[in-house]
């Protein structure tokens, strides 16, 4: 029992934490494991990412609703915080649903899990590239969309969403494609 819990700083996981998830030690998370529930989580996570990335543009909604500046700011702030935390919650559940395989170091995984993880990262990379390419095409060749002209903000929510997406995409890909056994 006194064995030291190794921390993998680069991956951001601990040995005991990964092993507990891999060995299904906590049965209260079993409901996350069926493919249907994993796919629902992936859809919710995607929705959260889209909403978070649009956070910079929500102030225009506030003005459209004709709310007073104070009330509008409170509604806006609470909604943004809720969306960010909900997305973060989805990401935590996703990691549990795929037993943290996407974040675990090689030495804690078997050969199939390593193969699955590597394939997931490959597809996550392509998905990210295609999304960014799509946005670039829209920016250069599309109509002058409001979403590319944030007024009075620095677009920081797009950066937050991009960070979330970069971290979560491998788990999302894995959660979507892994079959039930």
């Amino acid at each position, binding site marked *: 029992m006194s064995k030291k819990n190794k921390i993998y700083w680069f991956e951001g996981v601990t040995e005991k934490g990964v092993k507990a998830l891999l060995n299904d030690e906590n049965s209260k998370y079993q409901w996350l494991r069926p493919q249907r529930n994993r796919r629902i989580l992936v859809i919710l996570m995607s929705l959260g990412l889209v909403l978070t990335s649009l956070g910079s543009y929500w102030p225009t909604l506030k003005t459209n609703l004709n709310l007073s500046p104070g009330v509008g700011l409170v509604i806006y702030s609470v909604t943004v915080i809720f969306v960010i935390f909900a997305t973060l919650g989805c990401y935590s559940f996703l990691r549990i649903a795929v037993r943290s395989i996407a974040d675990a170091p090689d030495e804690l995984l*078997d*050969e*199939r*899990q390593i*193969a*699955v993880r590597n*394939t997931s990262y490959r597809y996550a990379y392509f998905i990210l590239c295609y999304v960014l390419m799509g946005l670039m095409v829209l920016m250069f060749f599309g109509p002058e969309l409001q979403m590319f002209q944030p007024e009075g903000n620095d677009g920081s929510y797009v950066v937050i969403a991009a960070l979330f997406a970069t971290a979560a995409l491998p788990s999302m890909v894995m959660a979507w*494609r892994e*079959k039930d*056994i």
Partner: protein
Amino acid sequence: MLFSMSRNPEEPVYNRIEDARLALGLTRQELADKVGVHYQTIGYLEREEYSPSLVLALRIAKSLNQEVSELFSLTPFKKGK
């Protein structure tokens, strides 16, 4: 198949892991512990959705007291054999 996990989806590796495991009265978890993999991996192998490496095939054969050629084949096994 877009997300295939097989090493070579064009040439699947057939196996009799489940038959051999059940003959020894082992659960997937018990075989997984003997071989040193996750129990899900045994499930994927038995469903022929994953082709093992040579090292894993040898370890499985040893754990099930069989020869690799008795457990794995590039052609489907005949039923009852």
